[in-house]
């Protein structure tokens, strides 16, 4: 047997417990070793998911979480050199397993996004004192590279926070209108904040390169002159306080 065939058979054994592949590899002569590697493979992946989704596990309970882990290991094979990549598809698996419980996949998204932000690229937030010389007519805000955003349909942020503090989580509630969440790292602490769709769209636009004046114009169009300008100022202050803005350029060549 060639080395390539041997390795493909080993893959078939690990991923699908393929008995024919095990037989070709050596059958009963090597069965104890095959069992060791099968166990190593599954335990590694299960431990990785358990470590990555602690609050999700708290919410759905150990038995349901274990069933989800088993389903995920069956559904998704690891492909990256780093185990950190393996949890990325787990929220989707939870969504498939619990289609009527949107907060479960949302909690998993929060667990995952916080872990990604924790080891994401470093960036130094802009200090308010550095705003003095900014040409606001042409200013483009550059946001921290750990920024992550998604929609939320439930009060999952409140549930997550309560679980993290060891407190009784609030009852599940569907939000009256679609909300959102932003996750980022400030210093060495990964943080999140529940936001509305208006701030979500503002952050997405700014991240895509919309100048601050363009954001102001958009908000004025949506909210009217006074409220739009006030909103833009409020968002700028909030983003500075959160450490989300890392630099401002003018966009003029």
């Amino acid at each position, binding site marked *: 047997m060639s080395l390539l065939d041997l390795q493909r058979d080993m893959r078939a054994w690990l991923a699908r417990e393929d008995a024919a592949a095990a037989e070709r590899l050596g059958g009963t002569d090597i069965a104890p070793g095959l069992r*060791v590697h099968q166990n190593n493979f599954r335990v590694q*992946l299960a431990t990785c998911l358990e470590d990555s989704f602690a609050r999700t596990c708290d919410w759905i309970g150990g038995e349901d979480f274990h069933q989800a882990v088993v389903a995920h290991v069956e559904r998704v094979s*690891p492909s990256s050199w780093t185990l950190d990549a*393996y949890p990325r598809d787990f929220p989707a698996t939870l969504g498939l397993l619990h289609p009527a419980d949107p907060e479960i996949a949302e909690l998993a998204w929060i667990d995952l996004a916080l872990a990604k932000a924790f080891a994401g690229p470093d960036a130094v937030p802009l200090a308010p004192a550095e705003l003095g010389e900014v040409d606001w007519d042409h200013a483009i805000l550059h946001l921290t590279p750990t920024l992550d955003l998604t929609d939320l349909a439930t009060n999952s942020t409140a549930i997550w926070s309560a679980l993290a503090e060891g407190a009784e989580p609030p009852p599940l509630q569907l939000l009256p209108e679609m909300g959102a969440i932003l996750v980022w790292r400030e210093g060495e602490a990964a943080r999140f904040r529940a936001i509305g769709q208006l701030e979500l769209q503002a952050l997405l636009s700014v991240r895509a390169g919309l100048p601050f004046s363009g954001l102001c114009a958009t908000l004025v169009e949506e909210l009217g002159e006074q409220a739009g300008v006030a909103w833009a100022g409020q968002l700028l202050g909030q983003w500075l306080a959160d450490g989300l803005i890392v630099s401002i350029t003018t966009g003029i060549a």
Partner: protein
Amino acid sequence: MIASFAGFGLGLRKPHYAEFLETKVAVDFVEVISENFMVDGGRPRRILREVRDRYPVALHGVSMSLGSADGLDGAYLARLRALVEEIEPLFVSDHLSWSRIDGFNSHDLLPLPYTREALELVCANIAHAQDVLGREILVENPSTYIDFAPADMTEWEFLDRVCARTGCGLLLDVNNVYVSASNHGFDPLAYLDGVPHDRVRQIHLAGHSQGRELLIDTHDQPVPHPVWNLYAHVLPRLGAVATMIERDDAIPPLHKLLAELRTARRIAGAPARAAA
């Protein structure tokens, strides 16, 4: 030829970060798992930079997959190279094993058949890794649970040829020799006498556990007497080497690992080292 470093060290693990950073621990070097620090930024990279300011660091990997029949992962090597350039480690090491094939990654150190075909492939992969990294690497003998037959050579003959053909060094894991010898019924002394002694630059010492049918390389126990005896057997045959205690699970307080390290120093006839 990789420069020798004579010293005694420990694997850097999370429960001991603060002690390593806030005190001068009585070690000559620390070894870190490369992949834990091959991240973009944040606390892991800051910790490693600060540790590197205080101690020589060896980078030990588990994901290079030197035995993959479809070659090495270029993205992995690029990330490792960036870490190597930043940390300037004593050694860069990985295992004589494979983890990845056709885009599937087992995250386990899977065994190779010791055939001429595997020898050609492993040598080509090591040469490629060394080209990308711009330096020679150390290859560690694995604990194995499967002995693929038929083989063209023993594991120690395989390692001897790999070192001779690629210029790589050897990270000799004495516990792995003991575990594999027990699992496959070969003489561990023949193994230790058969490896290329002039290529050994680092030694791992660790513990293991008895599984249902096989010894398992769990790294969750103190170094047992048979492994100390093998260490005492091989050490006089080697030149200057870096010895370290490798513990990955059931991690005890640091002073217990330092006590094991003092045992290694005593066996080596090295003077004890006081913490600063």
